[in-house]
């Protein structure tokens, strides 16, 4: 196919030293950026900073002063009073006091602190208790001002806290065995520092208490630290194993250093470029080295394999190299381009870390390709001549030298030709089973599950979620969606309420007629002056104020009454003081509880009910929402006479237009959060609120399900897109749509197999799994390309498929088999990783390689055997690919779908649009077809 030697290759062969220097220089230059690395483990960054859900989440967090929290649990299983014994409580007190000090002056703003937000700590010594104070009085005091001296006092604290719904199940476990401290942080990235400090303090404490630290920020930060360790261990370990395997195959230490060099330099330059361009290293991008390495090694192995086979025949490395490179240049270019396209397509997903990952893996692959075709030849040229003397397979020892692989391959080649039909049947069955498996796929992710079961964070998570309402937070925001009144309607209803009030005064014997006139006149004047109701009211109130100040003494009470009417009117929008609305919140909280996932929820209604009960002698039947809005307001003002009045503003905005229900989930699984969201959607539809309210979710757990849904959709369309790109490239490479299809089969089977397995074994479809589709696309198509390119070349030479197969299973298949083994085995060390995503990638990488290798080596020859007449019929045809109307239409349609996939987000949706678009495609394809047929005279030969 390629008749001339590529100038790049000949340059490398002629000027090997220059190439080596170039490689060293660029690696050092870009590698210099690596120390500047910043790690980002925040799942929130799965959404772009300007994503509406994230913007809303941030805005709400600010509006309700909510912070990310570290949860510190203290459990005592040995004392029969649980943690409610003097020693445990003394420890808890000491820890709280210590946690208060975990604040540090900010470097950029020395007057500000970062770390634990002291005022918002939830701990027995920092929360308020409202209780009966004897003789019908009510008492506000710290729940545990100082640690108790006796066991009875300790138990009393438990009894007190249990009566406060806000604390029960949140601060203390319902079984009394455990207590939780909630330590809000100024920013998430402080969590590791606080975590380490707490661990240190815990070591100093005596007693039989167990301590558990969890919370999303801790998990994220710890993950970041582990990620570094992982990168430092796994990637080099994988390299070492690849190295050993290469040595087994080629037995030439000096030579096999070269693919390692290529892999290392590709990884360093890519990571250097990634960091140098200001990107953070996210969980996804930390996997870039692991993805680039096998792909970088692949091509080198092809060259070495071929060189190994041919060297003894020519005994001249330059000549051998040029022949090898000539043969391999096109397949290598295409394999790299397809892999790059597969990963590059991830740039189209709506998830920034995945975009960065895709783009940089694609860059890395192309760079590895460049290094492979230049550095490998240059390296071979620089080796001392005599070190090559006993290298490779001499024609005499040909069969001996290939070790155990060759005879196996020989058997496969025979098998595939004679058992073509059963193989194809088997494939079809496997695909059917896989489709069933895919239908059972469960989409789910959970950052805590990124750790192994035995990791302290996983254990803490399990223990604390058993004892408490849940350590995963989501918030359900309810917002008044009452329409804004116009000035006219505002004026009308205000006048009505004032008139009613005046009527009452009249009944009590006051003279009100003069004022009545005055007021209605004033209302009329001011309502015409402005369009903004608030402005109208304030103007009107000012004027009434002036009247009342100059009024005679006997009118004072009435003016006072009028001002009261205006003041009440100003509060008309405060829906979350309305008893009916608060009762609805209680109802929603019960519904949340029904999902079983939610362990606990807290709302303004809980506060109102508790205060109401304690005001009315602490009777359980008074644990309810009072009957009037005023009573609610007065309970709330009473609450604000406590040590922590601002706790209220975590649950409602001061204008009482928005409220947030704090929902504690026992599980961080995205599927559980989705379940809650779906359940509440249905519930609210079925039981609508008493006043117009809109509702929205926010909080970390919700953000997670939102990006997850986005990821699944995004990955699917990215995969479809890259599938089409690769298909078009293959059709072009082989100048045949049919061969293009053939080339896509191994990877299709592999992907079906992988995702079918994921579905069947019940593994959650999470982020690493999602990204594997791109890897499969990249790797599986590589083998197919090598295989088919060689198959066609050999067939042109021998014109006989059976003969072709036997040659095909000689050196080309050997290279493929070696590749499969090297990479599959090379990545098995990842299974030992402490972080689950790496484990997953390790296992699946090995599986993908094995399956796609088998699919290539068994399926392709079987399929070719079965369809050889049609397939090879095309080779003899000299017609251009576009001459076939069918090919033409298929390619046109694929191309248009590809464009559409990419433009999708800019297009309006709806059936009509799609009908128009599809019609357009058909017309376009048909037109193209006609045009081509007429244009090219060569078609009509």
């Amino acid at each position, binding site marked *: 196919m390629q008749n001339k030697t590529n100038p790049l290759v000949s340059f490398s062969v002629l000027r090997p030293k220059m190439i080596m220097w170039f490689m060293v220089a660029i690696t050092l230059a870009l590698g210099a950026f690596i120390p500047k690395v910043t790690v980002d483990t925040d799942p929130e960054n799965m959404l772009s900073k300007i994503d509406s859900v994230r913007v809303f989440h941030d805005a709400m967090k*600010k*509006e309700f*002063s909510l912070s990310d929290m570290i949860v510190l649990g203290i459990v005592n299983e040995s004392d029969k009073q649980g943690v409610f014994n003097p020693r445990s409580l003394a420890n808890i007190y000491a820890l709280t006091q210590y946690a208060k000090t975990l604040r540090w002056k900010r470097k950029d703003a020395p007057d500000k*602190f970062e770390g634990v937000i*002291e*005022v918002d700590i939830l701990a027995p010594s920092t929360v308020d208790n409202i209780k009966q*104070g*004897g*003789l*019908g*009085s*009510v*008492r*506000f*005091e*710290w729940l545990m*001002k*100082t640690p108790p001296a006796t066991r009875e006092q300790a138990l009393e604290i438990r009894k007190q806290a249990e009566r406060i719904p806000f604390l029960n199940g949140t601060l203390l476990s319902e079984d009394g065995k455990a207590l939780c401290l909630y330590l809000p942080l100024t920013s998430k990235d402080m969590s590791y520092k606080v975590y380490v400090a707490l661990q240190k303090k815990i070591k100093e404490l005596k007693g039989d208490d167990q301590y558990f630290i969890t919370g999303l920020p801790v998990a994220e930060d710890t993950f970041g630290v582990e990620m570094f360790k992982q990168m430092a261990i796994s990637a080099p370990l994988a390299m070492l194993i690849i190295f050993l395997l290469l040595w087994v195959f080629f037995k030439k230490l000096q030579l096999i250093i070269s693919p390692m060099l290529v892999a290392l330099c590709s990884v360093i330059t890519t990571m250097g470029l990634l960091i140098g361009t200001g990107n953070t290293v996210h969980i996804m991008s930390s996997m870039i080295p692991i993805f680039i390495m096998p792909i970088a090694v692949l091509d080198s192995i092809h060259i070495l394999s071929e060189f190994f086979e041919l060297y003894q025949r020519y005994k001249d490395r330059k000549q051998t190299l040029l022949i090898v490179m000539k043969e391999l240049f096109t397949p290598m270019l295409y394999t790299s381009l397809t892999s790059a396209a597969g990963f590059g397509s991830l740039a189209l997903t709506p998830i920034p870390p995945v975009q960065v990952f895709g783009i940089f893996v694609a860059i890395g692959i192309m760079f590895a390709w460049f290094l492979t075709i230049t550095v490998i030849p240059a390296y071979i040229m620089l080796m001392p001549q005599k070190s090559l003397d006993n290298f490779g397979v001499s024609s005499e020892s040909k069969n001996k030298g290939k070790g155990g692989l060759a005879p196996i391959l020989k058997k496969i080649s025979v098998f595939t030709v004679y058992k073509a039909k059963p193989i194809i049947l088997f494939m079809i069955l496997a695909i059917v089973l896989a489709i069933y498996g895919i239908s059972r796929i469960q989409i789910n992710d959970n950052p805590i599950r990124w750790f192994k079961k035995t990791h302290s964070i996983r254990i803490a998570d399990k223990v604390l979620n058993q004892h408490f309402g849940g350590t995963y937070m989501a918030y359900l925001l309810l917002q008044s969606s009452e329409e804004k009144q116009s000035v006219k309607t505002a004026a009308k209803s205000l006048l009505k309420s004032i008139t009613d009030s005046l009527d009452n005064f009249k009944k009590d014997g006051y003279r009100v007629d003069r004022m009545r006139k005055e007021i209605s006149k004033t209302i009329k004047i001011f309502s015409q002056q402005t369009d903004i109701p608030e402005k109208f009211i304030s103007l009107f109130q000012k004027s009434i104020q002036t009247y009342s100040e100059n009024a005679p003494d006997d009118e*004072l*009470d009435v003016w*006072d009454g009028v001002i*009261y009417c205006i*003041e*009440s009117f*100003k*509060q008309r929008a*405060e829906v979350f*003081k309305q008893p009916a609305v608060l009762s609805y919140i209680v109802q929603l909280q019960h519904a949340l509880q029904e999902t079983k996932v939610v362990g606990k929820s807290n709302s303004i209604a809980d506060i109102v009910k508790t205060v*109401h009960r304690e*005001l*009315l002698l602490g009777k359980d039947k008074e644990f309810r929402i*009072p009957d*009037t*809005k*005023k*009573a609610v*307001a*007065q*309970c709330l*003002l*009473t609450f*604000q*006479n*406590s*040590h922590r*009045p*601002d706790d*209220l*503003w975590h649950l409602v*905005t*001061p*204008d009482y237009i928005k409220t947030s229900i704090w929902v504690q989930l026992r599980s961080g699984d995205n599927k559980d959060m989705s379940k809650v969201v779906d359940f509440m959607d249905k519930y609210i539809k079925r039981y609508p609120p008493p006043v117009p309210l809109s509702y929205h979710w926010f909080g970390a757990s919700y953000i997670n399900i939102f990006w997850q849904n986005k990821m699944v959709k995004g990955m699917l369309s990215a995969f479809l897109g890259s599938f089409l790109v690769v298909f078009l490239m293959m059709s072009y490479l082989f100048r045949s749509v049919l061969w293009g299809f053939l080339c896509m089969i191994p990877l299709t089977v592999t992907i079906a197999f992988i995702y079918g397995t994921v579905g069947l074994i019940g593994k959650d479809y999470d982020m690493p799994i999602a990204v594997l589709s791109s890897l499969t696309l990249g790797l599986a198509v590589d083998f197919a390309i090598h295989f088919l390119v060689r198959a066609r070349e050999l067939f042109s030479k021998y014109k006989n498929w059976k003969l072709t197969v036997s040659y095909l299973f000689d050196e080309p298949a050997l290279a493929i088999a070696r590749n499969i083994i090297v990479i599959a085995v090379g990545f098995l060390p990842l299974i030992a990783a402490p972080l689950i995503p790496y484990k997953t990638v390790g296992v699946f990488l090995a599986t993908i390689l094995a399956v796609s290798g088998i699919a290539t080596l068994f399926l392709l020859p079987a399929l070719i055997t079965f369809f050889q007449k049609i397939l090879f019929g095309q080779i003899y045809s000299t017609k251009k690919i576009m001459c076939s109307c069918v090919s033409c239409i298929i390619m046109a349609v694929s191309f248009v779908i590809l464009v559409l996939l990419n433009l999708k987000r800019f297009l309006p949706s709806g059936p009509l649009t799609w009908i128009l678009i599809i019609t357009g495609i058909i017309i376009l394809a048909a037109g193209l077809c006609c045009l081509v047929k007429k244009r090219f005279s060569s078609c009509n030969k």
Partner: protein
Amino acid sequence: MKRYLTGFIFMAALVINTLISTRIYAEDISADEIVEKANLMAFYQGADGKAKVNMIITDSLGRERKRTFIILRKDIKDGGEQKYYVFFKKPADVRNMVFMVWKHIDTDDDRWLYLPALDLVKRIASNDKRTSFAGSHFLYEDISGRGINEDTHELIKQTDKFYILKNVPKDPQSVEFDSYNVWIDKKTFMPLKSEYYQKDEKYRTIEALETKKIDGYLTVTKSKASDLRTGGFTVSEFEKVQYDINIDEKIFTERYLRQKPRKWLR
């Protein structure tokens, strides 16, 4: 020449005399005496008093909440027992709510709360006066005054205008601060600023923003309490301040919580 000399001597004597007297004066007065005078100045002006207070609570996000209440005060003994009656006018839904306090010196205060919507008079039992006053950044203790015997006082610095006193609680467990410094005007003994510390961190301040002489009494008419950790603050403005108006002591009883003393609440 002689006249000049006499003049000079006279002037010099005057200056020296002033200097000496100031020095003696400064050395003479103890920290406790300053505190005692300041306490009378800030909380015991006149035999009784009345004011309308507009309170604006601004939170860390700049959101404002407003409260308006009438405050009535009667001193039983200067520097000793006092009675307070706080009547809420705004917002409308807490109108007619009342806080009543009988301030004692060596025992816990008596406190009452009246909630009109529940028609409920409630005694509040508390030995802790450092809770928020109606959700503002002022604490209950800032309104009625902290007992001067609860802290040890030390004069740490003097400037031209101020005595600066450091106050350390005798029972550190009873309060959230470790110490506070007060700036007391040397001429008037009016405390104009307090800064509260936990260890070395200043976390809370109270400042007088405006003072006026009303009915012959120096009065803080605008003051501000700030929470330096959250950035929230509350400003109180005192209007219609009146002194010595002979408020009947019987108004400060449970009966008048339900039955509001209209005359005094205008």
